[in-house]
C-alpha cells in the first residue's frame, strides 16, 4: 500500500532549505554541456549583440568625430594614427527577460513515499535553479505577477523572499493571464491538474503578444500509476471533493487512460502555441528537468534567431 502525505500550507513557501537546494543545483549544472549546446545553436547564451552601435562592452566600430559631440568620446589612441579624430563605438547589447511562475496551490503540497521530494519542493527548487542559471549567464528573471525582471546575483533569495511574502497565490492554480512582451519567455512550473480549457486560457493570455513559454508539469509517481487496491475514498485537496470507489484497481485503469488524455491535450495546446511541454516526475532528479529546460530555452532562441 503506497502511503501518501499532504504537506501543511507553510511548507508551500520556500524556506532556507529549498533556496540552498536550488543554488546547489544551479552550481551543479553542467556548464560545459550548456556551452556546447549554445555553440551548436550558434548562439552565445546571455548577452545578445544587436548588430548596431549602442551601450555595450564589445567594440563595434570607429567613426569620425562629429563636431558638437562631447570631446570625451574621442578615442585618442586611434586618432593619433592620422590627422582625423575618431570616436569608438560599442555594440548595443541587451539582456533577455524570462518570467517564471511556480504553482503553490494545495495540490502541490503532496508527496507519496515513492517520490524523492514533495511536488512543491521540487517545483521551487527547479524554478530557483533555472533563475539562478539564467542570471548567471546574463539574463534577467522575473516572476509572473509578483516581481519585475531583474538580474541580481542573489536571484534565488530574492525570489524566495517574494514568494514568502506573497500569500495570495497559495490558492491560485494558474498564473495571471496578463500578456508579456514578445521577446520574453515564460516558464510555468506546476502540476496542471486543472481542466484543459483553463490552462489554455492562461497560456493564450500570456502569449497574446507573441511571447513564448514552457510548461513544466510536476507529477508525483502515485498520480501517474495509481497503485491502490481495494476500497478507498479519494479526497481532493483544493475543492474538497471526495470520491468513494469500491474497487480501486479497476478504477485505476480508467484513471490512467484519463490522465493520459489530459496530457495529450496539454501537449497539443502547447504545440499549437509554439510552447514546450515537459513532464517531470518527482522520483527523478531535479537536474534532469533543469537541463531539459535550459536546452529548450536555448533551442527556442536558436530557432527564433535562426528564423530571423
Amino acid at each position: 500500500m503506497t502511503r501518501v502525505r499532504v504537506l501543511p500550507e507553510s511548507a508551500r513557501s520556500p524556506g532556507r532549505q529549498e533556496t540552498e537546494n536550488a543554488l546547489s543545483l544551479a552550481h551543479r549544472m553542467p556548464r560545459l554541456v550548456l556551452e556546447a549546446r549554445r555553440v551548436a545553436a550558434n548562439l552565445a547564451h546571455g548577452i545578445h549583440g544587436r548588430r548596431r552601435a549602442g551601450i555595450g562592452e564589445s567594440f563595434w566600430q570607429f567613426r569620425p568625430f562629429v563636431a558638437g559631440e562631447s570631446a570625451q568620446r574621442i578615442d585618442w589612441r586611434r586618432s593619433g594614427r592620422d590627422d582625423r579624430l575618431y570616436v569608438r563605438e560599442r555594440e548595443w547589447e541587451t539582456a533577455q527577460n524570462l518570467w517564471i511562475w511556480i504553482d503553490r496551490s494545495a495540490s502541490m503540497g503532496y508527496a507519496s513515499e515513492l517520490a524523492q521530494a514533495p511536488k512543491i519542493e521540487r517545483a521551487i527548487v527547479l524554478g530557483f535553479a533555472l533563475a539562478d542559471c539564467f542570471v548567471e549567464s546574463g539574463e534577467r528573471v522575473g516572476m509572473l505577477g509578483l516581481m519585475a525582471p531583474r538580474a541580481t546575483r542573489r536571484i534565488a533569495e530574492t525570489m524566495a523572499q517574494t514568494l514568502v511574502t506573497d500569500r495570495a497565490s497559495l490558492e491560485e492554480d494558474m498564473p495571471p493571464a496578463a500578456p508579456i512582451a514578445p521577446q520574453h519567455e515564460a516558464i510555468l512550473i506546476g502540476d496542471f491538474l486543472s481542466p484543459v480549457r483553463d490552462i489554455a486560457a492562461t497560456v493564450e493570455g500570456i502569449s497574446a503578444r507573441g511571447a513564448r513559454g514552457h510548461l513544466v508539469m510536476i507529477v508525483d509517481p502515485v498520480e501517474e500509476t495509481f497503485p491502490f487496491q481495494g476500497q478507498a475514498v479519494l479526497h481532493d485537496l483544493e475543492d474538497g471533493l471526495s470520491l468513494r470507489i469500491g474497487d480501486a484497481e479497476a478504477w485505476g485503469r480508467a484513471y490512467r487512460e484519463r490522465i493520459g488524455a489530459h496530457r495529450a491535450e496539454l501537449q497539443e495546446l502547447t504545440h499549437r502555441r509554439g510552447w514546450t511541454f515537459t513532464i517531470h516526475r518527482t522520483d527523478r532528479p531535479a537536474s534532469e528537468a533543469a537541463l531539459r529546460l535550459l536546452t529548450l530555452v536555448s533551442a527556442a532562441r536558436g530557432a527564433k534567431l535562426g528564423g530571423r
Partner: protein
Amino acid sequence: MFGLPLTFTVPLVLTALAALPAIWLLLRITPPQPKRVDFPPLKILADLRPEQETPARTPWWLLLMRLLLAAFLILAASGPIWNPLAEDNSRAPLLLVVDNGLAAAHNWRDRMNLASERIEAAGRDGRTVAILGTAEAPAGLELSNPAAALERLRSLKPQPHLQDRRAHLENIQRLLESTPDAHIIWISDGVAGVDGQDFVSGLAQMTDDQRVTVLKSDRASALALAGVENAGGRLNARVVRAEPNGRDSGTLRALDLRNLPLADMRFSFDTNATETSVAFDLPTEIRNAITRIEILGESSAGAVNLVDERGKRRRVGLVFGGTADQTQPLLSPLYYIERALSPYSEIRMGRGGVADSVNQLIDEQVSILVLADVGGLDRETLGRVTSFVEQGGLLLRFAGSRLAAGNDELVPVRLRRGGRSLGGSLSWDTPKTFAPFTRESPFFGLAIPEEIGIRRQILAEPDGDLSSRTWASLADGTPIVTADRRGDGLIVLFHVTADATWSNLPLSGLFVDMLRRITSLAGAASDLTSEARNAEIETVAPRMTLDGYGMSTTPPANARAIPRTYVSRATGDHPPGFYGPVDSSLAVNALVPGDTLVPLNFAPLNARVEPLAGAQTVDLRMPLFMLALLLLLADTLASLWLGGHLSNLSGRVRKAGAAASIVLASMMLFSSGFDARAQDLMSRPIDENASPALITRLAYVITGDANVDETSRAGLLGLTQILSQRTALTPGDPIGIDPSRDEVAFYPLIYWPIVATQPIPSEVTIRKLDAFMKGGGTVIFDTRDAFNNRPDGAVSAEGQYLRRMLATLDIPELESVPNDHVLTKTFYILDTFPGRYATGQTWIEALPPRAEGEENRPARSGDGVSPIIITSNDLAAAWAVGPRGEYLFPVVGSNQRQREMAYRSGINIVMYSLTGNYKADQVHVRDLLERLGQ
C-alpha cells in the same frame, strides 16, 4: 447432555444459535471501512464515475471470528456447567457442618472447594443453606441464601486447637426443630475432638437415617506433634496420627527464635502404629536455641510444637567464699567453674559478701547455685538457700579450706572436720585417681582420664546411706562427689576445690562433662523455681500465636491471658503460641504430651459416607465470556487494521514510545549520576584485571566536589610516581573511593580532603571508617585551610566540619607530631610535614609517655600505626602533577625546597602506614653499635 458431563442452566437460550446463519449473512455484506486516500488529480476526474461499486468482501477469517464471538456469547448466556453434581432434586434446607479444627488444616483447600461446590449446587437447586464450623465458638444457626452462605464459608478458617463439637449440638437441635426436613452434610476430618464420640451419638439421636451425609477421606490423614521433652540430653518429639493412613514417614524440623532451621530429623511410623518418637540429639547450645518443632509440609497448628524456656539454658549463680584477686584469675575457683559452664549456661556472678551474693542470686531466679568453698551461712541466708533447694533448686558446693573448717546443714553427707592429704611430702600415698562411675551415678559413661590426681579432699563420715548418695568416688572408695535430694531440689558436693590447689580435676575435660551432667539434672527438677511461688496470681498475655496453618501471627482479638501454671492444651480462648515476655515465655501447644488422636466412629449416625474428593464442577460461563471478550478485542484490532488505521496508530505509538524512552533514559541518567560514577569506579579494577586487593594503591575519598577530587587524584598520582622512583614501593594508580559504598579494607592509606560544603557522611559511613581505622588503616584528613588560618585561632569551616564528622568516632588522643615520632624517620628525616602550605600543624595519635631509659632514643612509636593524621597543609595540591608531569599548583611559602619536602612528607606518611613502628627499632641500630663498640 450428549453423553458429556455437561448441563445448561438456561438451555432455552441455545435456540439463539439458530440465528447464526442470519448473522453470517449480515456480516458478509457489511464491508470494512474504506481507506482514505488523498489524491490531487481528482479535480480533473470529477466526471469519471467508478465503474464497479461492489464492495470488497469481508475476509472469511474475520467472518469466522465474528460468528465464533456470537456463538460463544450465546453459549455463555445459556450457563453451561461441566461435571455437575448429581442432582438430588430436593428443595430442603441444607446444614453444612465443616470441621475446622487442627486436623482439617492440612487439606483445608480441598475441604473449602468441596463445601463451596455443595453450596453452589444448593444455590442452583434454590435451597437455603446454614454453615457451621465446628471449631468456632457456638453461635445461632441461620438459614441464608447460598450467596451469603458462601461468604460465611469463606470467612471460616482452620482453627489452631482441637475442636469441641459437642457445644454445637444444641444449636443443631434448634435448627432441626424449626426445619425438620433439613439435610445435613458434614465435611469431617475424621478425628475425635475433646468431646470424643459425644457429637456423633448426639447427632444420631436428632436425625433419622438418610438425612446426614458425611464427607470424609477414607482414613483421617492428619499428623500431629504431641509433646516435646527435653530429657537425657536429647529432645524427644512425639508424632501421632489418628489411624494408620499410609503417611508413614516424614521430616521434623527444629527452628530457632528467628525461624531459621536448626536441624531436620526423619520420622517413620510402623505400618499399624499411631504414634512414633523422634529424638533430636544435638549439642546443648543448639538444643537450647530450638523454639519450634514442626512437621514439614503439614501446615497445621497441630503439627507445630513450641518449646519454651522450661528446659532451656539454666541460670547459674556463682558465689566464692574467699576473696578473689582480680589480677590473678587463675587462683579463683570460680574461674574454672565459669569456664566449664559458660558454653551451656547463663552465668551470674555474685557481688559483695557471701550473704549478699546468695540473696542477690536467688532474687535473680537462678536455677543452680554454686557455692565454692563457702563454710557457713548466716541463719537468714541459710533459710533462703534451704527453701530454694526445697522448691527445686540445685545447690552445687565445692569443698575448700573454709568448708573443711566448719559446715552447715546444706551438705549431702556429714563431713569430717579437716581434710585428708594424699601424696604430700609427709604422706606415703600418691595422689588418688577416680574409680569408674557406677551405673547409678549420673556420670556413668564418662571416660576417666588417667592423669587425674586428687591430692586433698574432705572426707565424709561413714554412714549407712553414704554409698547411695555417692556419685563418684576415688579408687580407694572414699566419696569424692556426693549428692542428696532435699525437698524437690538437689544438693551436690564436690569434696575437692574448684581450683587446682587440691586436685587437677578442674583442669581436665572430665570436670566440664561432670558439670554439664549436673546442669542437665537441674533442668529436670527446676520446674518450680521461685517464679512458681506467685504463679497462681500471675497471668501472662499472649505474645505470639499460631494460626490454623501453624504460622506465627499476632494474637487474635479473642486470645486471652493464661496463668503461669497453665499446662493443658490450647483452646479457642487460648490459642497455641508464646505467652508472656520474650525471656520467660510460656509455650501453649495444640496438643499436650500424652495426647493422642482418635478416629471418629460414624457408625451410630447410619449416614451416607462419601469420599472427600469433589466432583470438580466447572462453571463454563466465565471462560466463555472471557473467550468472547478476547475475540471482541481481536475483532476490533482486525477492523482497525483493515481500515488502515492501525499503521497510523502504530507509528504514533512508536513515536510516543521513543520519546518516552528518551525521557525515561535521561531521567535515569540524571537521577543516577552518582551511581553511574560509583559503578564506573567499581568496574575499573575489573577492567584492569587487578582487584584492589592485589595491588597496593593509594586511595582518596570522593567528596563530590569535582575540583577537589581532581586535585586529590592528581596529587596521589604525583606521589605514586615519586614513590615508584625513590622507594621499593610501586603502588598502582590511585583510586577514588566512596566510603559509603566501596570496600575500604584494601587500602593502607586513605586521603580525605575536607570540603565544608558537602554533607556530613552518613552514620553507616562513619561506622565503616571506624572499622577501617580500628583495623589498622590510616586516614589523612586534610582540611586544606592552613593559608586561611586566623591568628586568633578561630576554627575554619573545614575544621568545624571535621570536628562534627569525628564527633561520633572513637578517636584516640592526638598531639602535634613530636620531633622523635617515628613518622619523622620512616624514610627521610623530617621536622615538619609541609604541603602546599607550610604553616599548618600535623596531628597524630599521641604516643604513650616516654618510658624510663628511652630518653635518648631518636624515635618513638606506639603500638601499631596511628589511625588518623590530621593536617591543614593541602598535601595533595603540592603533590599534584598534570599529564605532562607539570606541577598543577604553586606552593605557598618561602622555602625553595618546600615541594620537595612535601613529597618527602608524603613518602614518610606512606612508609609509616605500611611499615608501622619498624623504623623505631631500626634507628636504634647505630646507638647499639656505638655502645657495643665501647
